[in-house]
């Protein structure tokens, strides 16, 4: 088990800021939850605290970015992409101010704290806003590469991750590019397309299924927007069944984005969107909530078997 993606974010942004005094982080009383206390102590002139005021956080970040600052606006994803959605839409995206909007403790990372603290809407909301890209890195490698790439990204960017330690996922190569999906493993019986921290359970599910003689692909679709359509279509043409996995509402996220691409290309195959259903979210830790909704090794394997109609094998 490696570190939390949150820790990797904090380490990487500190490294970048030490090399470039124009790198700033802006926090809304969130330096502790953003693991940025060390950043604040090391580079006090490069951290801007705005207090508990997420709208102001994003507006100020836009103003700073307008002067050429490389700004990471850091706040829990639940507040950042809801309370300050209009600032993201207008001050950042519409105004083309290249802020890096960082949603920490995303999805159901704050599991037991309830829906006020969940961000299960952020992909859907931001996918519908022009001129902002959306990335959910899966593991420490993807997180580090995403943050490094964010500095030179030519558009506003939203990046979200959780706070739980993440396993290092299989890596066929060391390339990373925002907008280019990563093939973690290849096989044509079952294809999982996962984003963010659901890639780990997808990999675990593939290992369960491989023991049953099924060859699996796992794609880390870290960039939800713009979607890597070429990769999606390529794997879908070879797959027997395809399952998307996300720490997000089943409405408006990765799954529906993939479905639209497939249908437009005339590709139909057994397909399932695994995410959080449109219901009062169950109480529990992130892992418990994942398991409850089938975002687990066994849950995803079961979904695959159902799609393959080989449930009787087990």
């Amino acid at each position, binding site marked *: 088990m490696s570190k939390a993606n949150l820790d990797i974010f904090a380490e990487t942004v500190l490294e970048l800021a030490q090399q470039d005094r124009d790198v700033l982080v802006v926090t809304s009383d969130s330096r502790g939850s953003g693991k940025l206390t060390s950043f604040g102590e090391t580079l006090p002139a490069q951290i*801007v605290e705005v207090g508990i005021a997420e709208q102001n956080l994003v*507006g100020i970040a836009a103003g700073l970015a307008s002067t050429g600052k490389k700004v990471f606006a850091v706040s829990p994803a639940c507040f950042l992409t809801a309370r300050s959605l209009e600032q993201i839409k207008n*001050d950042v995206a519409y105004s083309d101010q290249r802020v890096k909007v960082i949603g920490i403790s995303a999805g159901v990372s704050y599991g037991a704290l309830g829906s006020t603290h969940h961000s299960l809407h952020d992909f859907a909301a931001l996918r519908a806003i022009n001129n902002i890209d959306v990335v959910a890195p899966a593991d420490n490698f993807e997180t580090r590469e995403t943050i490094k790439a964010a500095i030179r990204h030519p558009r506003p960017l939203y990046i979200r991750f959780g706070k739980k330690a993440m396993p290092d996922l299989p890596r066929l190569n060391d390339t990373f590019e925002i907008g280019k999906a990563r093939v973690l493993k290849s096989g044509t019986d079952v294809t999982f397309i996962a984003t963010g921290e659901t890639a780990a359970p997808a990999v675990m599910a593939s290992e369960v299924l491989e023991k049953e003689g099924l060859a699996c692909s796992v794609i880390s679709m870290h960039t939800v927007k713009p979607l890597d359509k070429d990769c999606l279509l390529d794997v879908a043409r070879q797959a027997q069944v395809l399952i998307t996995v996300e720490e997000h509402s089943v409405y408006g996220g990765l799954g529906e984005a993939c479905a639209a691409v497939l249908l437009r290309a005339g590709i139909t195959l057994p397909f399932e969107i695994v995410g959080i259903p449109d219901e009062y979210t169950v109480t529990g830790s992130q892992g418990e909530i994942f398991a409850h909704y089938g975002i687990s090794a066994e849950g995803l394997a079961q979904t695959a078997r159902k799609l393959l109609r080989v449930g009787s094998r087990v």
Partner: protein
Amino acid sequence: MTESELRLKSVQYRKTILKIIHHAGSGHTGGSLSCVDILNVLYNRVMNVSPETFGDPNRDRYVQSKGHSVEALYTVLADRGFFPLEDLDTLCHYQSHYIGHPTRHVNGIEQNTGALGHGLSVAVGMALAGKLDERPYRVYTLLGDGELTEGSSWEASMTAAHYKLDNLIVIVDRNGLQITGPTEKVVALEPVADKFAAFGYAVRECNGNDPCELVNLFDQVPFEVGKPNLILAHTTKGLGVSFIENTVKWHHKVPTQDELARALEELDGAEEALKVVPL
């Protein structure tokens, strides 16, 4: 530009505002006429910005939080040479960049606005960057009085005071009317000056339609070292045309051909008077 020249400009700008709103068939007449003197003084006398220096990192910046009064801003920017006045023939027309709120597609505009309560935070960010980099520029932002009920304005105000942004000049266009009616009847704002003072601003008040008073105040910035500056500019909505002044319906009413002719006649008279007897 001298103060008598500024007064003449204000009248000419009012004529242009009415013409372009009439031509576009869309616009915010009352608010543009209330704030145009402020923009006139900023762009012709106070701010260190021009088409030639717009890319200069040391330029002064202006963010129009009350984005709906964009016709006043377009009028002044065109006059200052940021783009040809004729471009405004396309205002609000199909595929025009000159839309009904400011966007960075238009030369001279720093930030897209239109949703109220946004401009001050962005201006705070700009001013903060100036402090961090020890740059000499100042940041000016114009707020409508009606938008002061947006809570984000007060979030931004707390930050401006906390970071001692005396390079930030917030101007409130206090014309007293919003789309529903008088601000004090919609949701009372007073005491506005005391509220901003309590939030940490150095507050000054003036007649926001008097170029001389505005120039005098801008010359005193920073009002107090280490405090953001707040100018409570008392204005008259629709100023310059008798039948538009202080009339709620003219918030976004577009003048008819006849109304335009009558308005221009009044303003022509005011212009001639200024030319005959320079102040």
